[in-house]
């Protein structure tokens, strides 16, 4: 008795599995639904909200008035461009310092002669696991000469005190100080990504290169770096997006007003003040203006991310 094999459409070329068909759709649907409900819809709704004034209930359509205000109102536009400029400085620290350190650490950690790799890797990653509010507060206290001057001087590190105003109280140094704390905290993330990228490079390539007479520096710049360009691009995008959404480190170290005198105000804190909490002391938030800020930044991020994506991820 021969059993006629049961026809399983999905395996036997039922029309849904044709190459180019849309059978894959059903696998995407759960993620898609989640994305639409929790990401796309709120984002689009925030664009809609930017055309309205007032809080829920008393909402009034005002067209582009919020955008006009954002770019022409003396106070609001001054704050916006100030925060925008600060954000670029904040970003530059992360892009140039944090990511360069990440590559450096990763190169050292993946070196064949490296001993105790796990230990150092853990050490570098630990700060990432601590809440920003905690590290921010600790650094705020450490950088405050009122509390740190005596202990630092007693161990001969008095030069770290800067001035009686402290690193965080001085207009000129506050933003750099906050940026460096953030770099210190997050350097583990790019390090991990670069470690993974370096490890995925085939040893044969390096071996072949060294047989051909390439010195370690040439191996690094001509082989290892070019091979991890897609990862560098991804890290650059993540850094870019994360920095334009940064908020917590400023909140913890310099108040949501970006003290001193808005020297550390970022788009995130600006958005929080206008859109979520309302300006002290009235505390009536303006979701419309807040949405206008976030929509503007969204558009700017898009303009920044797309070229980088095309440039670094296109080859795949």
């Amino acid at each position, binding site marked *: 008795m021969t059993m006629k094999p049961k026809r399983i459409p999905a395996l036997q070329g039922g029309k849904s599995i044709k190459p180019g068909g849309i059978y894959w759709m059903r696998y995407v649907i759960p993620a898609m639904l989640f994305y639409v409900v929790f990401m796309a819809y709120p984002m689009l709704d925030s664009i809609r909200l930017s055309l309205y004034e007032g809080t829920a209930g008393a909402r009034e359509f005002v067209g582009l008035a919020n955008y006009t205000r954002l770019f022409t109102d003396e106070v609001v536009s001054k704050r916006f461009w100030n925060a925008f400029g600060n954000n670029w400085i904040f970003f530059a620290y992360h892009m140039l310092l944090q990511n360069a350190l990440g590559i450096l650490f990763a190169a050292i950690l993946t070196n064949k002669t490296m001993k105790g790799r796990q230990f150092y890797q853990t050490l570098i990653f630990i700060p990432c696991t601590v809440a920003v509010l905690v590290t921010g507060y600790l650094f705020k206290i450490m950088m405050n000469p009122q509390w740190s001057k005596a202990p630092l001087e007693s161990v001969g590190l008095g030069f770290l005190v800067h001035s009686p105003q402290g690193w965080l109280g001085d207009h000129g140094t506050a933003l750099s100080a906050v940026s460096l704390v953030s770099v210190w905290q997050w350097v583990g993330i790019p390090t991990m990504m670069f470690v993974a990228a370096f490890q995925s490079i085939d040893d044969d390539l390096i071996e072949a290169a060294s047989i051909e007479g390439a010195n370690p520096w040439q191996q690094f710049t001509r082989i290892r770096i070019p091979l991890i360009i897609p990862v560098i691009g991804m890290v650059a995008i993540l850094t870019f997006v994360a920095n334009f959404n940064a908020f917590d480190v400023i909140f913890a170290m310099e108040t949501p007003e970006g003290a001193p005198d808005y020297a550390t105000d970022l788009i995130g804190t600006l958005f929080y003040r206008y859109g979520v909490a309302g300006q002290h*002391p009235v505390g*009536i938030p303006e979701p419309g203006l807040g949405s206008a800020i976030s929509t503007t930044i969204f558009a700017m991020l898009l303009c920044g991310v797309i070229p980088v994506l095309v440039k670094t991820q296109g080859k795949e």
Partner: protein
Amino acid sequence: MKKLLAIVLALMMLALPTLVLADGELTLGSWRTEDGEAVGALLAKYEELTGVKIVYQPTVSTQYNATLRQQLDGGIGPDLFYSRTYSGGAELCENGFNVICDEIPGVKENFTATALEGFTDKDGHIFAVPFAAVSHFVYYNKTIFADNGIEVPATFEDFLAACEKLKAAGITPLANGIAGNWDILECVLCSMVPNYITAEERVAYETGEKKLNDEVWLRIFEDFAKLVPYLPETYASIDEEQADMMFTLGQAAMVIDGSWSYSAVSDGVDAGFFSFPAPEGYAAGFSLHPDFGIAGNAASAHPEEVKAFLTWLASPEGAKIAAEVIPAGFLPLINADVAPEGSIISEMNAAAEGKNADRRFVWNMLALYDTYVSELNAIVRGEQTPAGAVDVINAAWEAELAK
């Protein structure tokens, strides 16, 4: 954005309990999460007296306005809620969310005009029962004062002399700084202003009848500048919390802070307080700023109970019980002697006796808030002169009035 979403979801979860309340229970919304126990005692007392159960439902202060607004819009607002003063509170009433309190017995009779002013909207309706006010004081370390032979100063000149003496002895006289971006204005400058300007004069400045760079304001700013040498060297890194910390650690002899900070600054220190002294030749003033009231939800399912509770709060009997339980530093606004004998509240009330009480001057000129803070910061940093600062402020106000 993701973080924001998470916050919103969390708030929605917090709002859920309103849906599962037992029938006949009322809710009281508030931004003072730290007062659960105190207000709970007040509400328990009320239940004992009337049999009406009210549940306290606080939200974190910074999210309160937005959350309350969403609840009211969605028809799940609390039956009673803490109301902000001035524009923040009036805004809700103008949108029809509040029980109008004009007709609540006792409201018009038992409170002063100054108290009611903070709770009156543009149309002249009273939108909440005035509940508590805050003031500002100079807190001083009694031990340090005694060790250096310093008396509580009666005038601004004595105050400066005391500061000088402390500084000469190597003690930081004042703990205040500018890192918080608000306390230098609200606690320091606003506690000085009533010594120079009465409530009537303040109105003249608000309307533009008097100039904000006249000789009175110049004097206020010059006197403010005289305090600068007595601030800590590290002023740029000190906010309100750290100023209180310095004071309680004995690193400074005085701190100018709000009445609400009494428990924070007296933690482990023998702290006394006095209201900021007036210069010689000036009538002493007192900063008394209406801070919050209690409003009724116009859409409540229990309108009678809501009105009854508001009536009770507006009566001396209710206010007396409230005064016994609310935290030290919140001064009752009712025109009756309700403060418990020997309490901090009655001590603070005594400091106000015989003085021209007025609220923080900047509250009807909020467009100037930022300008004031940045000019004061600049004076402290030595980047601005008092004369320059008042000119900038006056110009900003004239531009605002011209709008």
